[in-house]
């Protein structure tokens, strides 16, 4: 399966990656090769097979819905690249 540079650009947009044009070409080539390799799965008959979404071998447990101490605003913001007051600061959202 040959992936075009346009398809790569579309996937990069979905993945929020601003790729350079040389990256787009490289990934078009490498992803095509990987997709060729994984196309092997198409040869299997999987009709009637249930998908496995998780490896869990024991049943999941939910904990009691009780309030507990959590991070303070200062702790939560300590790693922020930019902050304003008790908020994360970002460039303008509306374009």
């Amino acid at each position: 399966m040959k992936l075009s540079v346009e398809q790569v650009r579309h996937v990069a947009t979905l993945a929020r990656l601003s790729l350079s044009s040389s990256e787009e070409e490289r990934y078009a080539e490498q992803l095509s090769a990987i997709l060729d390799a994984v196309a092997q799965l198409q040869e299997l008959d999987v009709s009637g097979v249930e998908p496995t979404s998780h490896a869990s071998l024991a049943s999941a447990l939910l904990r009691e819905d009780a309030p507990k101490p959590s991070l303070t605003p200062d702790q939560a913001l300590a790693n922020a690249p930019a902050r304003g007051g008790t908020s994360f600061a970002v460039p303008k959202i509306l374009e």
Partner: protein
Amino acid sequence: MRLTDLTLLELAEKLASGQTSSVEATRACLARIAQVDGKVKAFLRLDERGALAAAEASDARRASGTHLGPLDGVPVAVKDIFLTEGVETTCASRVLQGFIPPYDATVVALLKQAGMPIVGKLNQDEFAMGSSNESSAYGPCHNPWDLERTPGGSSGGSAAALAAREVFGTLGTDTGGSIRQPAALTNTVGLKPTYGRVSRYGVIAYASSLDAPGPMGRTVGDVAALLQVLARHDPLDSTSAAVDVPDYRADLEGGVAGLKLGVPREYFVEGMDPEVEAAVRAALAAYERLGATLVDVSLPHTKYALATYYLLAPAEASSNLARYDGVRYGFRARESKGLKELYGQTRDQGFGPEVKRRVMLGTYALSAGYYDAYYIRAQKVRTLIREDFTRAFSQVDAILTPTSPVPAFKLGEKVDDPLSMYLMDVCTLPCNLAGLPGLSLPCGFTRAGLPVGLQLMGRPFDEAKLLRIARAFEREHDFTRRLAPI
């Protein structure tokens, strides 16, 4: 003999008997790191102050006649994928440079509660994506058995630090072989526990349905002792299993007489290094001599595991790594106009090539029009792979295979060929797809002196039997006692 040449359990005994102190052992580790890590590059950063404070506290407990358990005072180190409160954690990515976690991963907290000083954070592939430690944004780690070669990946630093005797035990994570393959390439013992056996809370997520944190050590006993600290139900991880934890050392010397060990024909693949195959076949013969019965088993969907893994893991990764957007923590690209540009540029500049490749692949597999053909189909094949194991384990107690099809390869050899790099995981990733426990055990050397690993896979939550089977071989051979020439 250097203090750092002792195994974890030997050091634990000397601490218990007062023949050495935790401060002395921790200082010995730091001195050894200063001596060799310029060449090995197993550590991304050290926490000398934190480790020495923990060591002093341990010695004070011992002096007053108490301790927090058998490993109190034994210095260890953890892969940089584990959150460590107050100590920078990057997952070997530029996108997390400068990130100081506000809390500890559960397994890190458990090490501390057991009294173990944590001397530093270990090198790895970026976000655990890789099989050679070469995708680390901070440079590759080197194999102490041959510094021009890879220690394996993604837990390359966790394995190399042990082989170089820089520390007595380490933690790694294993999503497709990332504990077992580096263990095999460095003559160390690595255990990927059953999914759910060891908490993932505070472990930076790569592929959540496959990720398994686990212990690495120089001997089987060391790994059993570390697993004892780590294995427990964690209410903070909803996939953590509430199952009984046995005493992992109680049955360690139980031997293999009467056990049935499965040998799946599909794992002795074309392209396997003949010296690896010879060492593994010799180990199988040794198990027969020790009283086990070898059983020919078939896992017919093995050849589909690689394709299944390289659709499912990148799909989960593309979702998990969406959080690195330059807003809340870590790296942010400068001078972006608008939020979309901030996301795009932060991620393009913050992620390395392998991470971007997998995010792209996963995004594609999940995108409209391809979701059923790739993602859902791979999940169905995953079911077939799991059923293969269920059938095999109705006949045998454990399954034995090579861990890696080749010994340690040269750094740079495969880095530009993603598909040939992905093949390095061919023997290890079925175990992750099925959620089963797997262990890599040193079982020989090539003529060039490179280590070879034997992989043992077990039934769910049957780590104790894997350790017992591994120990039976270790007792009769000296491989885990051999020291890398560094």
